[in-house]
């Protein structure tokens, strides 16, 4: 029986599961957070508390893709527009009613010691289980010297973390901005400032799009827009990379709450495999509501059961060291694409992708006769298309004609449309398997046999000694 509970995260934060709502609109009020806990969320990071702000109307915009809504999401909303008092009164009520769920107070105040001391004390007095220092907010607040204005300068981050730690009795998490050339510099600063943990990543500076009629970027605030913070499924790969960078760096690594495009238990597992102890979710909850956590918890539980993991710590961080520098990759590892003729539907997207985007080694020559070898030996896609357009097609009007038109041979797809991989030219780039719309139709098969591994570093060591070159 797997236990998906979190024990002593960042020292002493406990909660029934690793799924937290990130500091954002879904955690705006006590009423919302209590409904979220009822739905099954393990924890919630309160919408950032500080001196109340005034927000603009028109705050969000999204990137849709291929008919899907909200591939990426962008906001220009600031921190809480409610008073510190109001937020903390509600927090006390939430903690009283939901003692087992983690309530983290996200904080952002002006950069002076007294202000931080005061807000830390008040949040902890209200019952916060931990504090998250918002050094990441990329819009609006940074113009006032807060948010990412702090998170982009390691010295400030270290200093403020230090001030907080002077007072804090609960774990202190520093929330990192990705809007910096190397996120590790600030992670290291937080660690030097004795932070107990980190949250990463905050949103990425963005302009999601421009209205082609008005020429105003979105979101449109009376004819103008402002760069916002990008999040949602689109940012997950960026977030995973930064999480890995932090967790692989001994000077930066701390208990980490992973953020960035988490919308399912699968995403959560990936963040945990890279070392995160909890994950935070915002966009997916804004899109579908709190109810998404049910499947997240169940899915995680089922996956752990299937893999034989009892606790989150059993698999936490297993993938961190599966990421290496390129120079340490095995150059003798060789894979090629194989197409399953029974599964191929004949869209031939792999063929055109290979010709126009890769190495011209997937051909439509099963009927004309397979030819292996370099590009000049094959008909080009343009020649193939010209032949189709020059052919004469007729509507099959009789039953016999219809039977003939829709007859197929050995495979569900006519042989002429099933592409063939020339394995002598295939470099194993994976592009075809990425574009193939049919699951497991194109698989990448390992073909290197009895060749010992050799990395770039190993291969060039001797050469470098023999003939030094400039750069790498």
């Amino acid at each position, binding site marked *: 029986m797997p236990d998906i509970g979190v024990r002593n995260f960042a020292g002493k934060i406990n909660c029934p599961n690793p799924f937290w709502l990130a500091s954002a609109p879904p955690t705006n009020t006590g009423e919302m957070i209590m409904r979220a806990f009822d739905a099954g969320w393990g924890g919630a990071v309160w919408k950032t508390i500080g001196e109340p702000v005034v927000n603009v109307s028109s705050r969000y915009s999204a990137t849709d893709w291929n008919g899907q809504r909200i591939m990426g999401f962008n906001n220009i909303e600031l921190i809480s527009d409610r008073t510190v008092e109001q937020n903390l009164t509600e927090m006390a009520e939430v903690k009283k009613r939901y003692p087992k769920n983690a309530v983290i107070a996200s904080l952002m105040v002006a950069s002076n010691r007294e202000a931080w001391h005061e807000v830390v004390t008040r949040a902890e007095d209200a019952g916060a289980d931990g504090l998250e220092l918002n050094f990441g907010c990329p819009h609006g607040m940074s113009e006032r010297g807060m948010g990412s204005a702090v998170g982009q300068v390691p010295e400030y981050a270290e200093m403020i973390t230090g001030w907080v730690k002077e007072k804090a009795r609960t774990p202190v998490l520093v929330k990192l901005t990705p809007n910096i050339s190397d996120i590790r510099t600030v992670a290291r600063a937080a660690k030097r400032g004795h932070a107990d943990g980190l949250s990463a990543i905050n949103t990425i500076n963005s302009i999601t799009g421009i209205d082609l009629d008005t020429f105003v970027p979105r979101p449109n605030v009376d004819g103008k827009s402002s760069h916002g913070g990008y999040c949602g499924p689109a940012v997950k790969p960026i977030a995973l990379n930064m999480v890995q960078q932090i967790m692989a760096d001994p000077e930066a690594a701390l208990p980490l709450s992973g953020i960035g495009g988490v919308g399912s238990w699968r995403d959560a597992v990936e963040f945990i495999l890279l070392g995160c102890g909890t994950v935070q979710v915002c966009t997916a909850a804004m899109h579908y509501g709190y109810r998404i956590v049910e499947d997240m918890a169940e899915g995680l539980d089922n996956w752990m059961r299937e893999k034989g993991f009892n606790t989150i710590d059993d698999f936490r961080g297993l993938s961190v060291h599966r990421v290496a520098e390129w120079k340490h990759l095995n150059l003798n590892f060789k894979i090629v694409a194989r197409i399953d003729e029974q599964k191929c*539907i004949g*869209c031939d997207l792999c063929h055109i992708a290979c010709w126009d985007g890769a190495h011209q080694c997937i051909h439509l020559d099963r009927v004309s006769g397979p030819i292996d070898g370099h590009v000049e030996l094959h008909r080009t896609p343009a020649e193939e298309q010209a032949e189709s357009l020059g052919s*004469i097609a007729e*509507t099959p009007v009789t039953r016999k004609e219809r039977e003939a038109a829709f007859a197929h041979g050995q495979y569900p797809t006519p042989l002429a449309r099933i592409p063939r991989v020339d394995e002598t030219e295939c470099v194993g780039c994976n592009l075809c398997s990425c574009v193939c719309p049919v699951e497991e139709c194109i698989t990448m098969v390992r073909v290197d046999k009895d060749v010992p591994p050799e990395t770039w570093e190993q291969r060039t060591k001797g050469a470098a000694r023999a003939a030094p070159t400039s750069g790498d």
Partner: protein
Amino acid sequence: MSTATLPDDPHLKARFGELKPALTTQAAVIESDRCLNCFDAPCTAACPTHIDVPGFIKRIASGNLRGSALRILDANILGASCARVCPVDVLCEGACVMVRQNHKPIQIALLQRHAMDAFWASGETPPAKAAGTRKLRVACIGGGPASLACAAELCRAGARATVIERRELPGGLNTYGVAEYKLRAVDSVREVEMIRQLGVEFRCGVEVDSPAAIEKLEAEFDFVFLGLGLGAMQRLNVPGEDTKGVMNALELIAAYKTGHLRELHGTVVVVGAGNTAIDAANAARRLGADTVYMLYRRSEQEMSAFDFEYEHAKQEGVQFLWRRLPVAVQPGEHGRLLLETVQVRQADRKLEVVPDSEATIDCDLIVPAIGQSPLTEMLQKLRGVEVRDGRIAADRETGQTGNPRYFAGGDCVNGGREVVDAVAGGKRAAMAMLKLAEVAHA
């Protein structure tokens, strides 16, 4: 062009409302996004006019509706009517790779209609070169899809084309012979109007039936394209079939589409089980007939109608009498008709009458729908144009006939297929003529 047009008849509209509703803009975009954008797409290959299907679909997805429509029209000038009348189940949609993944095929016909509707709404005409930029004049005899496509293709390339149609309105079966719930006659006429705007000249109500008329044509034009279609509907060849109350399927369809037949009642018997028979039977139901029988001498498995047409007829409430043969028509009481029939069965390769199976159907209208006869009368006057098995013998690639100045396409060559086949035939002939003219003037 003839100034004759059709009124937008509310009575007709009410009874023959469009079979499938149009896609909303968002539904069209969602459906377009579903398209995989196959390379050298099977849907394009299956289309006789080779419309770049993924090309026009992805233009809908990107919001480039003008480009989408022009992409369609570039391959098929009758893209609007084809979107409505093509049996896509056995063409583009039947070839869609989605079905091999247990997905519904992309709704290509509805998407094509979406793009074409937007184009209509914009009031634009497809681009064409200025008339006379090429020294080529072609007469297209017959005003149906084959001639329209041929003439449009010629004019778009800068040649001059004249369509000669014996009926009052051009469009051929698109105007007079397609079920109104698929393609309204007014929409067919509107499509022809677009073709006229490309520079095609129309001479309607003109018969080319004498050697003098043919000679005159040959003097005026470099080439003649024959888009004659098929001949009159086949007769039943039973006694009494000229009795008042017998009206063949194409007459019935043309009559209701042009407002001359507005109401039916009682019992209607359609003889035959092809696609036109079904159009007539469904029309009879919609015009008010209580009972509509389709009488077919063979079985359900052998009927030539497309499966989706058969299903549709059943939904319209048409009843089927299989393996039954009409033997005579008698006048009945109060202007009604008595159709004498017998049951038949397969005996070796022939049909034989089942003894004691005579049955008389008391009905109000009998509609023969057993196919069109070949058009031979006029063709015999054209020297060198060979007719084989009732079809004009023409080169498959070019449509050129035994007389090198005559080209042909559509039903009169293929024996009776779909609108899209006629368009393809007309287009191929036009391209061949343009090429010949280029060589001649080079």
